[in-house]
């Protein structure tokens, strides 16, 4: 049976990337799906060109292409991230971290209580937190960009 070459597999990865699928696991899943579809077409028509077989297979995803899939995956990932953030948040209210939480609240209320103009503390405090947050997001984005440019993949995978 006629099989897809390595170059054609790479072309399918590029195809999914060009259709805004940025996660490597979803790209891989779609590449395998498209490859299976194309190879099945070749069983009936071995001379059918790769490009035309790909167009035919992609049409099966409907008029919106991969967009529903991307939407659902984004939703699923956001749900997963929220769950993790919630787990980390809860940790601050359990031993041993609750000691740090309570101590921080006590310290802050003590400092605020000593000052007449509380804005001297609150404004720089909020500003520092904001800057830290922006810096973190910026460096993370830079790291993801670097990883993609280095190996063309966004995400890690463990294979069995």
């Amino acid at each position, binding site marked *: 049976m006629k099989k897809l070459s390595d170059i054609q597999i790479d072309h399918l990865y590029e195809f999914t990337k060009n259709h805004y699928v940025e996660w490597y696991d979803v790209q891989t899943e779609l590449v*395998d799906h498209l490859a299976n579809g194309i190879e099945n077409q070749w069983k009936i028509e071995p001379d059918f060109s790769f490009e035309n077989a790909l167009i035919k297979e992609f049409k099966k995803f409907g008029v919106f292409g991969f967009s529903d899939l991307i939407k659902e995956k984004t939703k699923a*990932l956001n749900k997963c991230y929220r769950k993790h953030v919630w787990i980390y948040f809860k940790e601050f209210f359990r031993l041993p971290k609750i000691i740090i939480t309570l101590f921080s609240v006590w310290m802050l209320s003590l400092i605020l209580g000593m000052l007449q103009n509380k804005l001297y503390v609150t404004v720089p405090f909020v500003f520092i937190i904001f800057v830290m947050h922006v810096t973190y997001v910026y460096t993370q984005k830079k790291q993801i960009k670097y990883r993609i440019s280095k190996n063309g993949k966004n995400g890690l995978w463990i*294979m069995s």
Partner: protein
Amino acid sequence: MKNTNLYKGSLITIILKLLNEHDKMYGYEITQKVKEITKNELQLTEGALYPALHKLEAQGLLDVEVIKVGNRVRKYYKLTEAGTKETVDKLVELENYIKNMRALVNPKFRLE
């Protein structure tokens, strides 16, 4: 999918039932299996299948296994313990639905 509106609500049940019968399956295999069982009557659209699979995975009903096959990587889905329980519930739900629909569409003739 053929007769989209009628089948739409049963997509999750179809996936869970198939995975319950097979140890593990990949996306393309699911579409082909459905076609084979229904003799081409029902065709799962890829645009509906994968979002449903990803949703079930996020809900913890499906587990994923990745295996290298030839020159590409294949993502297999299998039921988790919660997924197996959910399959039973979904099938009962579907049976009840079929029973009620049959009663509505084809009510028994009564002489009262």
